[in-house]
């Protein structure tokens, strides 16, 4: 299998490798194939390009147990979320898939990657769910996702044999780890702070990013900025009521286009990842992945990657503090902010003393404003961002900035694969 050092060091102090190869049509037609779901395809792409460095493939039993139990790989590297590939017993039997063989992994019936299958194993999914999420409650979406992984886990190294082609507007935002490093070099950035998002930006988000810029800049000169904010938009499985992905990336980019951020210090890219909502452990995972795309700092706000009341608002901060010596990225902890009617600006309860005049950036309220189609004030959402979000609603969301059943049924895939590469 091919493996190319991209020349940058990632998580665990290891060089990041791209595992991508070109093969001619039909080269693997004699191999058994396994069709992936979208999460598995996203994770193959993540493994192939080095987003999950130092992982080279899907975890074996020993590493899976260690990750769940000790948040660690067998070589001692910090790892918090197991990356596994499962297939049903029936599929494995029908396809005649056996350990020690190469398998073509397909997505939407087209070849995507090659798996050198090392081990197939059963695993106690309930135990896994309790270890990763701290609960077995099936109301937790991550627990449900874990329990759905029927059959056996398949471990082994992965190599992409067909690179994804992203459709507009995602093509403008898709960058591999290598391309992220190249972007920073071109912009002259030495410090990069990641802002993870699944939202269209309101001024509360903008405030967080701007304050994080200062925090991440540390002692670098300010007359020739060498620090950038990277909006890292998580693109993965959607649920009704989420913002549509197109509105997220275009709305975020508009902050730069309209000058609320100087393009010299601002960029937007995608991260293919299906949220597990694992709260603190997922925060650690996000820190790892952002290390592998070259970020030096990562912003963590209230209830990062949490869901419902499963985690306390600042649990992620405490876990990150515990493991910070095993990370190569510096977390920046942010308190929940609000709009203060006295200060006339976005602030938080540690900075001002007008808590009784606080107006919370409630997601429910902002959602109802957008549904009413009422243009927000400049103090709540930048007018250019609102316009861009509404445009995206019309163009991609069947009139809604939020995911509907119709959007889920009819939206085209985020990326496509060439038909002829590698497979039949």
């Amino acid at each position, binding site marked *: 299998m091919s493996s190319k050092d991209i020349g940058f060091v990632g998580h665990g102090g290891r060089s990041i490798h791209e595992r991508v190869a070109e093969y001619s049509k039909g080269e693997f037609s004699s191999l058994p194939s396994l069709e992936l779901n979208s999460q598995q395809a996203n994770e193959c792409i993540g493994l192939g390009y080095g987003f999950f460095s130092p992982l080279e493939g899907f975890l074996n039993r020993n590493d899976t147990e260690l990750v769940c139990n000790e948040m660690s790989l067998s070589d001692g590297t910090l790892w918090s979320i197991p990356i596994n590939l499962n297939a049903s017993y029936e599929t494995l039997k029908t396809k005649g898939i056996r350990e020690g063989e190469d398998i073509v992994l397909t997505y939407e019936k087209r070849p995507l990657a090659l798996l050198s299958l090392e081990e197939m194993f059963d695993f106690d999914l309930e135990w896994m769910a309790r270890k990763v999420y701290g609960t077995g409650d099936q109301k937790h979406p991550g627990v449900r996702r874990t329990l759905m992984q029927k059959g056996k886990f398949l471990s082994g190294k992965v190599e992409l044999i067909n690179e994804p082609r992203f459709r507009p507007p995602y093509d403008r935002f898709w960058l591999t780890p290598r391309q992220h490093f190249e972007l920073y070099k071109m912009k002259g950035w030495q410090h990069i702070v990641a802002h993870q998002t699944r939202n269209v930006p309101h001024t509360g988000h903008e405030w967080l990013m701007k304050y994080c810029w200062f925090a991440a800049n540390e002692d670098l000169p300010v007359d020739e900025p060498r620090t950038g904010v990277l909006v890292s938009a998580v693109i993965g499985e959607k649920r009704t009521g989420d913002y549509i992905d197109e509105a997220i990336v275009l709305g975020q980019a508009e902050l730069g286009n309209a000058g609320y951020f100087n393009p010299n210090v601002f960029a937007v890219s995608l991260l293919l990842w299906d949220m597990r909502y694992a709260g603190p452990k997922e925060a650690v995972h996000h820190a790892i992945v952002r290390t592998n795309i070259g970020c030096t700092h990562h912003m963590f706000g209230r209830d990062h990657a949490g869901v419902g009341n499963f985690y306390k608002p600042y649990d992620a901060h405490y876990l990150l503090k515990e493991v910070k010596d095993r990370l190569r990225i510096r977390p920046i902890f942010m308190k929940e902010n609000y709009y203060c009617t006295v200060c006339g600006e976005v602030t938080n309860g540690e900075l001002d003393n007008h808590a009784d005049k606080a107006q919370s950036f409630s997601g*429910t309220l902002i959602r109802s404003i957008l*549904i009413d189609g009422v243009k927000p004030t400049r*103090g*709540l959402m930048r007018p250019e961002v609102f316009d861009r979000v509404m445009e995206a609603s019309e163009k991609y969301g069947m009139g809604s900035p939020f995911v509907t059943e119709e959007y889920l049924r009819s939206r085209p895939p985020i990326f496509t694969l060439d038909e002829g590469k590698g497979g039949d």
Partner: protein
Amino acid sequence: MSQKIAINIWLNDERFKQLEKNGLGNMAEDRLAGMKMIRVFVSEEQKDKIMLLFPMAKYDSSTTGTIELLPRDAKDRLFDLCVKMRKTDEEVVDCFIEEEERRKK
């Protein structure tokens, strides 16, 4: 004490001017970063009727106590009723429900 159930109607410039023109500017509250809205109060029984009339609507019982995701045109009609009746109470909601029931027949 349980929180009151409400429907928030956000005000753009046009709607706010309409309120002011009718001497109803004091109905508007500054809710978030200068965003103005009126709150129309709804009884428990009215809330259930509204949820039946608009199955896509959601009642957020845990945080805001508001009925969300009502169609934009239904909210326009509710706003017009508030202006016409010069109030935002349950009487307005009764009229709104009656009108919406007529429309659905």
